């Protein structure tokens, strides 16, 4: 009698575990698709904010949008730190991120999003008139999206 009761309880518990796991698995792809869309939406918003902050030379806003260890690869092949980029933006030397883009593609890998775009220089266009291919990497730190890397390459005419 006692043995039968233990078996019944064990079976019930197993069913409960299977149900919980199955429910979780069933929601997987739908949740994934929702979280991917949400990540894309959030990142595009951050990109807009960064564009505006560059145009307004608002280094304080950019300070919070850039990760501390940010890597910035200029179209001249220099790697700049966050402090150097902020200095350049304050002085108006840097126009990257404020440029209009012709196309945008977002690739989501969990808490990392890569934004690919093709830009045309709008301001300070003396040297760089050709379109540029840009890659911007966003990472989520403590629940906030930040720019971890940005790269620009001038397209060489074929």
């Amino acid at each position, binding site marked *: 009698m006692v043995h039968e009761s233990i078996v019944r*309880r064990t079976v019930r*518990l197993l069913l*409960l*575990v299977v149900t*919980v*796991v199955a429910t*979780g*698995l069933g929601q997987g792809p739908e949740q994934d698709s929702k979280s991917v869309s949400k990540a894309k939406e959030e990142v595009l918003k951050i990109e807009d904010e960064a564009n505006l902050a560059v145009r307004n030379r608002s280094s304080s806003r950019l300070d919070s949008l850039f*990760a501390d*260890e940010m*890597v910035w*690869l*200029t*179209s*001249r*092949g*220099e*790697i700049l730190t966050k402090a150097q980029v902020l200095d350049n933006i304050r002085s108006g030397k840097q126009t990257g991120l404020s440029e209009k883009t012709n196309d945008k593609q977002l*690739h989501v*890998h*969990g*808490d*990392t999003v*890569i934004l*690919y775009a093709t830009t045309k220089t709008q301001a300070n266009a003396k040297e760089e008139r050709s*379109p*540029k*291919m840009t*890659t911007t*990497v966003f*990472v989520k*730190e403590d629940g906030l999206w930040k720019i*971890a*890397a940005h*790269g*620009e*390459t*001038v*397209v*060489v005419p074929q």
Partner: protein
Amino acid sequence: MNTQRITIVLLATALMNPAAGQVVGQTGNPSQSNKEEVVNVEDARIRAHQNKDQAGMERIYADDLVWTFPTGERFTKSQFIDIIVNQKLKPFVVSDGKVQAVTTIKQEDRHFYVFGNTVIVTRYASMKELFNGKPLPHPRRFFNVYVKEDGRWQLVTHHSAPVATPQPGDQ
């Protein structure tokens, strides 16, 4: 019995948490551990390039990899693997007026930046390369972005730009 139930439900919930697996295997400083893991994957990637090891590259490159050349051209995973396997990209040096193929890729000015499960590698490359018989801009700097997904590091993007002011000693 209630305690048993709660324990089993908590266990099941923990197993379903995708982050649970990421903690396993990390000892000490997770940032240092991630850096060390990516150093190994980056080294393996370079070996796969040098050996034209298609399976090795397939494993390390994410399916949606985008590879940006210093010319601004962009390639997908399959396009880039085709470029390497079929030797469309050829590193070379000019020695005594003769063009010689390069078989070993030098690791110059390599740095690693850790952002949780994302690691960015920057590097300087002084070597000259021919792509489909045409010289590519050189020297160049680039970054590689690695992301750890399902316990595995994969290269998700490579972005390269020509260096306007070469370092002393570059040809």
